[in-house]
């Protein structure tokens, strides 16, 4: 069996800035895809798969752009040496866990096989799915709204297209949050429990570091902390309509966007990357 070498990127601030939403969309899509064939009703099953495909498309566009940026940087850094061009598939399927920069929230388990008929102690509840989809779609909407003004015309173009999709995802998922939060006593209890589980991981969505700093300085895009007011307003409105209480802030900040992940991402990647690692360059 041929071993296939992992892609090892030099993570510049620009590259990291592109990989954060790219990987968040990719891993979120991968988690939503786990519902395919298991949705609570046929129509919602299709809806979840449609949204996963939207996110996969966004990830693909961003990773293709990141691959171009990485290739150009690699060629500049190794003048005289041959530097093979990267593409989006290599970034998705041949990068190791430490180089994935998705928010931790996106990688946490959504669903346990066979667990959709009853609510397990943590995760596996449909409430977790609609809530995470809502929280991340609202974040993406805030990001794309501002990224359309990026000095990077490629990123601005991706943002303009993705904004329409994020707005719909937010409406669809937000609708579920309200229906379940303001539904029966049982659905309200489970929705509030899901909120309790997800909330500590939302702090990372607005953390600030050198990557954000550099993006603002170059005009590449907004800093995460500048997205918080928009996000908070939308989330507060929906939680109020759903009769849900936002949990108190905690000092915990998850670190997926710096490459330090929970124990769950490795399992997601093992499943997602298996084929390309076992059959390098394999195509349909």
């Amino acid at each position, binding site marked *: 069996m041929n071993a296939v070498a992992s892609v090892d990127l030099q993570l510049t601030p620009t590259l990291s800035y592109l990989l954060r939403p790219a990987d968040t969309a990719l891993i979120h899509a991968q988690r939503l895809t786990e519902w395919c064939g298991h949705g609570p*009703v*046929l*129509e*919602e099953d*299709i*809806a979840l798969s*449609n949204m996963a495909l939207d996110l996969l498309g966004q990830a693909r566009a961003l990773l293709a752009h990141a691959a171009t940026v990485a290739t150009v940087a690699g060629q500049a850094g190794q003048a005289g040496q041959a530097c093979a061009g990267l593409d989006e598939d290599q970034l998705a399927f041949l990068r190791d866990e430490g180089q994935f920069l998705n928010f931790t929230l996106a990688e946490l388990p959504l669903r346990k096989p066979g667990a959709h008929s009853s609510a397990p102690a943590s995760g596996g509840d449909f409430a977790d799915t609609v809530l995470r989809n809502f929280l991340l779609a609202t974040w993406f909407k805030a990001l794309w709204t501002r990224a359309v003004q990026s000095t990077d015309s490629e990123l601005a173009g991706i943002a303009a297209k993705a904004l329409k999709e994020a707005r*719909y995802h937010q*409406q*669809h998922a937000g*609708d579920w949050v309200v*229906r379940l939060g303001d539904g029966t006593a049982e659905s309200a209890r489970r929705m509030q429990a899901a909120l309790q589980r997800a909330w500590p991981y939302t702090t990372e969505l607005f953390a600030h570091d050198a990557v954000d700093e550099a993006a603002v300085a170059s005009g590449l895009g907004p800093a995460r902390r500048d997205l918080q007011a928009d996000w908070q307003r939308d989330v507060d409105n929906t939680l109020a309509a759903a009769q849900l209480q936002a949990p108190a802030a905690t000092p915990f900040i998850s670190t997926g966007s710096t490459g330090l992940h929970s124990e769950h991402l490795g399992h997601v990647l093992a499943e997602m990357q298996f084929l390309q690692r076992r059959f390098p360059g394999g195509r349909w």
Partner: protein
Amino acid sequence: MSGADAAQATEWPLFEVFVRPKAGLEHKHCGSLHAADAAMAVQLAREVYTRRQEGVSLWVVKSSDVTASDPGDRDMYFDPMADKVYRHPSFYVLPQAVDHL
């Protein structure tokens, strides 16, 4: 509880979906789906019936709000029209300008 009542208790109501393929054309019936209410039906219709760019507008109507003709009345309702070809406007010569009417 009758079969229909039992289904009502565990299933969302049925909606009929109408899609307008493009501006200027009429909404056409394209199928049905289950949803908790009309607002959800519009969203799910978007997912189920317009995911390949089939339309620019959606209508949904609760199936129970549709009053249909009785299949048992088919012969008295529709068969008498079979031999009334003069009801088709096919005996006029149309000017070229309205050829696509």
